[in-house]
């Protein structure tokens, strides 16, 4: 199996605006998995869909053809042309695909770097796929290693703590404004991962009501359910702002969704009760000038990190560390993949048997006083035994069959004889 047969096709918050991503939303994972089974050349596949990304991780015997099919299937429900679809998607192949997947798992590709939800979402996606036998030897190994890469990044760098501490900082600031957060109402604009985390912290501190406003009501309803709150559409934003105390914005819209002139008249109806805006979207959702209004406080991600005294350069060095871990894990996977072929497996198998034979011979001969002729005879004897013993397994490996079963056989033999552990 060549590494070039591993691919990832997808869209995320960096390549496509939210309006495009929403058109690719698949509420039921069954549908895309069933569709992917029909894609020509596609052998193993996994489908990941979150608020900020839709990705298909797959292996294919005919990458070009499979990619075309998958792309047209992803954009089937949108009215975009193929050129537009190509412009919005990214395609990673080979080592690039491996690195990309590991970066996603380690939350280096997230809107808020280090937010912890993405790993859980990837695990779910993998479970759904593997339960339906959509993944095989390659993807099983690849995705499991993505989890370990993510774990290493989490334990060896501080990248995770910065996302957590950003929502912690938001809570601290809210307390400096409102004193007590009991009975305060939170509005989440955009159903993003980071918004969810911030809301969790705020609810834990006593906020009673969570209102979720999103462009697609479906996602809003899903998130609102988690907090036993209500879902509204983004068009109702102004009305909601008359009653809520805190707004967490993460819509990922390409332009500002709220301007100073829109907030100003609201303050009169609010009778000047303070409003706390938390803007965690990149690019920003909220007009920075909103902060100039009396009793209104606006903080974006950079401001929040300032509160917890994590400066940008710290975050940058942690990110570099994380990238190194990702590359390191990628290389390990490549090493494994390189061995997952016929010739190296047979060589490894022979080598392993021969090592055992030579070691045992040396042990035995040390205690015996044999002539050169006798030693030669024993050498010949042992060689014949292992050759005969390995003959059938090797024939079985060489047997022409469907490439899926071939990978399985290679994997099985490698595991039977423990060929990967010594390296």
């Amino acid at each position, binding site marked *: 199996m060549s590494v070039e047969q591993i691919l990832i096709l997808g869209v995320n918050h960096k390549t496509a605006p939210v309006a495009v991503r929403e058109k690719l939303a698949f509420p039921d994972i069954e549908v895309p998995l069933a569709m992917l089974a029909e894609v020509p050349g596609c052998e193993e596949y996994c489908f990941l869909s979150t608020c900020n990304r839709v990705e298909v991780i797959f292996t294919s015997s005919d990458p070009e053809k499979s990619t075309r099919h998958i792309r047209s299937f992803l954009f089937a429900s949108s009215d975009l042309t193929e050129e537009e679809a190509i412009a919005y998607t990214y395609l990673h192949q080979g080592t690039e695909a491996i690195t990309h997947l590991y970066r996603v798992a380690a939350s280096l590709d997230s809107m808020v770097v280090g937010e912890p939800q993405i790993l859980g979402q990837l695990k779910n996606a993998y479970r759904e796929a593997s339960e339906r036998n959509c993944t095989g030897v390659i993807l099983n190994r690849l995705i499991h290693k993505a989890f370990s890469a993510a774990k290493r990044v989490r334990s060896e760098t501080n990248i995770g703590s910065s996302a957590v501490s950003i929502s912690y900082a938001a809570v601290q600031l809210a307390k400096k404004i*409102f*004193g007590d957060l009991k009975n305060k109402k939170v509005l989440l604009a955009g159903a993003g991962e980071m918004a969810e985390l911030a809301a969790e912290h705020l609810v834990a501190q006593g906020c009673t009501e969570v209102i979720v406003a999103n462009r697609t009501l479906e996602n809003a309803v899903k998130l609102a359910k988690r907090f036993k709150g209500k879902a509204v559409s983004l068009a109702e934003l102004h009305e909601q702002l008359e009653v809520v105390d805190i707004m967490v914005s993460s819509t990922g819209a390409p332009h500002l969704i709220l301007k100073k002139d829109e907030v100003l008249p609201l303050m009169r109806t609010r*009778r000047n009760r*303070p409003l706390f805006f938390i803007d965690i979207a990149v690019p920003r959702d909220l007009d920075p000038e909103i*902060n100039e209004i009396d*009793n209104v406080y606006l903080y974006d991600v950079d401001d929040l990190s300032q509160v917890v005294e994590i400066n940008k350069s710290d975050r940058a060095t942690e990110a570099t560390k994380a990238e190194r871990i990702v590359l390191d894990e990628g290389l390990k996977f490549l090493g494994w993949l390189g061995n997952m072929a016929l010739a190296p497996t047979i060589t490894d198998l022979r080598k392993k048997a021969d090592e055992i034979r030579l070691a045992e011979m040396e042990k035995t001969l040390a205690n015996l006083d044999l002539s050169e002729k006798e030693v030669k005879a024993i050498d010949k004897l042992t060689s014949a035994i292992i050759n005969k013993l390995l003959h059938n397994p090797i024939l079985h490996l060489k047997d022409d069959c469907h490439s899926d079963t071939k990978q399985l056989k290679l994997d099985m033999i490698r595991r039977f004889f423990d060929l990967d552990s010594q390296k």
Partner: protein
Amino acid sequence: MLFTGTYIVYALATTLYLVFFSSQNRKVRTMARRLLLGAGVLHTITLIARYIAAGHTPLTTHHDTVSFFAWSVTWAFLSFRWRYEIKNFGTFVSLVIMALMTVARLSSQVVNELPPALQSLWLPIHASIAIAANGFLALGFCGGIMYLIQDRQLKKKNFGVFYHRLPSLEALDQLSQHCLTIGFPMLTLGIMTGSLWAKQAWGAYWQWDPKETWSLITWLLYAGLLHQRFAIGWRGRRTAIMSILGFAAVLFTLWGVNFLLSGAHTYVR
């Protein structure tokens, strides 16, 4: 002597409050509180002694007025402490008390003869209510200053010494509302009793002498603030600024009028 003793205890309490502010050591705060309470008690004794020495309510000299003002602030603060706690409020209040006490200390402590016009039961009633009102308004002033500092920290997003030490904006806003709801009725009552007394002493309820005029200006400022707060829902920075301005008017009524303008109240020196 007694006054000097009180002054020293206040000074110690203020110093400890400042130490607490920078170190945030709870033991220091407990000591500061006890000292302030001690100073308050001692101050009360001082005032009683002063009453005995003068033979009438000691509110007719500048020294006595300011000293009583400081006493009002102290007890207004202690009465608040009884009900709820505001983080590091004591530091700000003790500085105001200290400033007033210093002014009192620097002015002549000679007991004056009471002019016939002031020999009335109205003297203790009017003067003490008016000055006690100032005590609560002074607390409102401290709250306003603290609010403006904290608001600025949150708006400018530079989190200095004050950010962690000052309470939430909500708590400070509540505080200023409490001070106002107690201070304003007392101020009103002070002006009304003054007016009744004026009728008795001078034959007219109101004669637009500078003290009266400035009391009215002060009253209008606070009345406006209350109106805006309850009718329109003003709060936060604007009300903080208003309570600082209101207190500035209080101080001007107390001093500015006496030293810059002249009128019927001028014999209160």
